[in-house]
């Protein structure tokens, strides 16, 4: 097993960066795969095995930037890779093959993964169906529930700050004749429960509100929303892609009927996710992918056993190391925010600080354009809410929904901290942010005018 893993890692290392070589070297030099990367290894052990750039100039050319984009994706935890390996190599059976051992052993692994995910969210394993990711889970939940109840209920409620796949699913349903209410959010990013109550009708089939927002990290009052929906027998779906494994979730305590989970936000593999579908009281939905009837007929297609095993392992790790991860990320976020705010003026944190997932820090730097700051911070992998960094060239609709002025949306940077982020990386980032923000501001005519006391809002910009 070890030699095969090293061969795989080795060949990738030859083609790729020094990072993988170092990881492979770590694996080899340690007492073997069994002690460093088994699921039983601690998070601290996993962190030391994960190669990091030291920041010294020699290595800087060959290493990858510091990764602070945890909301976009997270690295695969080495222990998750370890759990997946047998299913990528020797145990290649189709989990739906009933007639031989290849199928049985894979089916067993898939069942175990189901249990691991169910236990992360307080559900029953029968209530978990595997999908290709949270996008598919969102599509299935929203379109599936709406279409099933179409005759009797034709109204859906969601929020303006939801992920594009949720908003787009709702838009598609509108074209099919459904009515959709898009709830606004406060400056802090949360929906108002009074607005929600007012929007609810006897014909409302579903309420879909994400648990943790991917751009600003704000956490909605899920338990209360769930309670309100249960009272009125409206199904409650939540996109928990950024929340699962990061904040405590319990589908029963929070009255959640449907929940989307994403593998690659949880230090698991890409290409896999899960949808929780409540059985008591039963949630019915029309599947969007039909065929052989796998996953209780709700999602046909061969279940990708290696990916699913990875998702299960990632879920188990997240549950086990919840305290460690949360403390780690909170400490780093505090260090980052305090560091920046003490050394740079006119920095605004987007989102309600009282209801925030600490691992997502979205800051707006006045008088500095987001993309230019991102380019300046070339050794740090970040994301921004500015238009130029999105494929559609529109500025972040989430920040606009918060009521942020266009210029603040353009100057926002999202720092995503995770299990593998280190203090020295945060310190490096703080130093660089201070240096580059000041440098960019020196160059900015707006900053100059602001310093002179001119109110920028009074300026008449001429059209060229």
């Amino acid at each position, binding site marked *: 097993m070890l030699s095969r893993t090293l061969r795989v890692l080795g060949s990738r290392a030859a083609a790729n960066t020094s990072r993988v070589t170092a990881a492979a070297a770590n694996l080899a030099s340690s007492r073997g795969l069994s002690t460093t990367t088994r699921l039983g290894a601690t998070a601290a052990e996993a962190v030391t095995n994960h190669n990091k750039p030291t920041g010294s100039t020699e290595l800087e050319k060959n290493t990858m930037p510091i990764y602070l984009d945890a909301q976009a994706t997270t690295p695969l935890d080495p222990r998750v890779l370890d759990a997946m390996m047998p299913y990528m190599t020797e145990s290649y059976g189709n989990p739906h093959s009933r007639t031989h051992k290849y199928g049985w052993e894979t089916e067993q692994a898939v069942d175990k993964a189901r249990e691991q995910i169910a236990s992360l969210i307080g559900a029953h394993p*029968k209530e978990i169906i595997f999908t290709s990711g949270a996008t598919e889970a969102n599509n299935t939940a929203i379109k599936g529930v709406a279409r099933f109840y179409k005759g009797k209920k034709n109204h859906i409620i969601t929020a303006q700050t939801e992920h594009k796949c949720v908003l787009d699913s709702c838009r598609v349903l509108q074209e099919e004749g459904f009515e959709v209410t898009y709830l606004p959010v406060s400056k802090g990013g949360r929906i108002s429960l009074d607005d929600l109550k007012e929007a609810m009708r006897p014909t409302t089939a579903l309420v879909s509100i994400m648990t943790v927002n991917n751009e600003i990290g704000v956490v909605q009052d899920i338990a209360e929303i769930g309670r309100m929906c249960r009272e009125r027998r409206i199904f409650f779906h939540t996109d928990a892609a950024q929340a699962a494994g990061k904040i405590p979730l319990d589908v029963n305590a929070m009255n959640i009927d449907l929940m989307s989970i994403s593998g690659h936000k949880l230090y698991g593999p890409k290409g896999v996710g899960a949808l929780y579908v409540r059985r*008591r009281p*039963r949630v019915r939905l029309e599947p969007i992918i039909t065929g*052989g009837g*796998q996953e*209780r*007929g709700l999602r046909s297609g061969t279940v990708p056993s290696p990916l699913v095993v990875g998702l299960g392992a990632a879920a188990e790790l997240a549950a086990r190391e919840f305290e460690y991860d949360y403390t780690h990320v909170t400490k780093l976020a505090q260090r980052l925010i305090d560091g920046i705010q003490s050394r740079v003026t006119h920095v605004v944190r987007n989102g309600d600080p009282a209801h925030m997932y600490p691992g997502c820090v979205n800051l707006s730097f006045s008088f500095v354009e987001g993309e230019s700051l991102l380019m300046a911070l070339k050794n740090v992998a970040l994301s921004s809410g500015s238009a130029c960094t999105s494929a559609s060239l529109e500025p972040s609709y989430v920040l606009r929904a918060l009521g942020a002025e266009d210029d603040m949306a353009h100057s926002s940077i999202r720092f995503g901290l995770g299990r593998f982020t280190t203090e020295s990386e945060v310190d490096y980032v703080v130093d660089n942010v201070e240096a580059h923000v000041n440098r960019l501001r020196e160059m900015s005519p707006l900053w100059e005018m602001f310093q002179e006391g001119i109110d920028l809002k009074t300026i008449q910009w001429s059209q060229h």
Partner: protein
Amino acid sequence: MSLLSDSIYYEKSSETLERLTESLEDIGDQMEIDDYDIEYSSGVLTLRLGIKGTYVINKQPPNKQIWLSSPVSGPERYDFDSEHGAWFCRQKDESLGTLLNREISDALGVEITLPVK
């Protein structure tokens, strides 16, 4: 062998099995019985009643029939009778709905009526 057309067979058998699934699920939810499980996929409806046994009701498209496996009365095959709009087995001249109502009511100790004739 029934003279039913393929599409009518598909329609009627799907309708019957889906109705059975829905009503049995509702009964399960209301009654909260231990080890009660119902699963319908790929045309096979499996109803587990814990120690009372497991019922399997499935489509059999080549014969245009519905087949039943009952822990109480054993196997049976049903053909669709368009006149009565019900699934009948020739030997016992009894409909699927009648048998299921009787046997499941017995097993649960409660009178139930399924929306299937």
